[in-house]
């Protein structure tokens, strides 16, 4: 291996492994990347248990267990540039929904009352202890760059990595999923919120116009909009847009309600209440980040408790 290559470490924390698969999704472009990158540690490729010194460190997943915390700190110590890679690393990800439950509830549900197993034993000390909270990695270590997405589309991975290697400004945009969606947004006379499990949406018109909840307009485009273009409403997997994150008074539910109430005849308050009732679903990907959790108008624990008390 040439000494002039950029050394790369990757590490996964609490995640599904999809972000590492997304790197493999570079396909032939992987060869182009490997011309200037030397992979030293990668859980799916190398048997490296230690943390070698590297230039770039890609960390995927959030911090949920003690092991995650130690691995994140070790990566920070050995890598010059740390990229928080994927929604879990940037915002805490899907398992941020675990914050709505206590540790005991989670352990009981997974190990004791799981509908698919018959065992009734909690794991012993051979696995890493579950931390008190789910946190994005930037609450544990200093992060240099963020690349959200669940997983980020290979287009953005290549752009990010090549700009880092070539020391150029990345040509990534800050537009939302709507920007890449082909559906036509138009004003309609729809008066009720539609349930996607019991009715079909027309393939040419925007979901919001038809009364279906879609998070495309409040989600950063790091996916090239595959879901809405294939008939599935956006679930917000790449995390909120910059305006939702930076403005405390703007929120997923208020932004969607404002746009949807202008496109349809459904009142603003009806949509907002509907979103609050299904908060655990709609805030799932970014619930663990303080940028969402500390919003003055954000009462997700209350909404979920109300929902589950019924």
């Amino acid at each position, binding site marked *: 291996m040439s000494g002039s290559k950029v050394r790369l470490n990757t590490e996964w924390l609490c995640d599904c492994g999809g972000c590492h698969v997304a790197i493999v999704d570079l396909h032939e472009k992987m060869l182009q990347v490997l011309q200037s990158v030397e992979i030293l540690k990668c859980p799916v490729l190398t048997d490296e248990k230690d943390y070698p010194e590297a230039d770039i460190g890609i960390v995927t997943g959030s911090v949920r267990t003690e092991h995650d915390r130690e691995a994140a700190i070790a990566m920070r110590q050995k890598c010059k540039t740390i990229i928080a890679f994927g929604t879990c690393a940037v915002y805490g990800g899907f398992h941020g929904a675990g914050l709505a439950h206590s540790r005991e509830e989670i352990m009981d549900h997974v190990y004791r009352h799981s509908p698919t197993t018959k065992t009734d034993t909690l794991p012993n000390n051979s696995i890493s202890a579950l931390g008190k909270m789910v946190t994005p990695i930037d609450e544990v270590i200093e992060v240099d760059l963020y690349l959200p997405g669940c997983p980020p589309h290979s287009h953005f991975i290549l752009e990010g990595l090549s700009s880092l290697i070539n020391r150029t400004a990345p040509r990534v945009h*800050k*537009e*939302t999923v709507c920007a890449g969606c082909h559906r036509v947004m138009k004003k309609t006379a729809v008066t009720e919120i539609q349930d996607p499990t019991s009715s079909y949406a027309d393939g040419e018109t925007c979901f919001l*116009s038809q009364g279906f909840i879609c998070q495309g307009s409040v989600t950063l485009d790091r996916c090239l909009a595959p879901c809405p273009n294939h008939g599935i409403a956006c679930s917000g997997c790449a995390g909120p847009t910059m305006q939702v994150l930076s403005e405390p008074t*703007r929120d997923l539910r208020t932004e969607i309600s404002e746009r949807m109430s202008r496109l349809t005849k459904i009142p603003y308050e009806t949509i907002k209440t509907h979103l609050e009732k299904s908060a655990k679903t709609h805030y799932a990907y970014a619930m663990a980040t303080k940028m969402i959790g500390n919003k003055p108008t954000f009462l997700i624990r209350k909404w979920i408790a109300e929902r589950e008390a019924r």
Partner: protein
Amino acid sequence: MLEMTIHENSCRGCQLCLDVCPTDCFVFDEQTQKARVAVVENCIACLSCAYICPSMAIRHKDYHQVKNFYRNIEFSSRMEKFL
């Protein structure tokens, strides 16, 4: 001189910008079914259109930025780091 642009490919034709603009800067192009900036001179840089646009396709350049005192400074400082 203030500039305002709409990223054409991103516009979904919802006309929300026409609805919210207090100074009628936009027109709807029936042929392309997309919004277009008609009179940029009218723009007072309230940024209502930039905020309502579902695609975030509207950009302003060279305007006097009024800094919100309630903006989340901690996160705003991280935005530069987004790939």
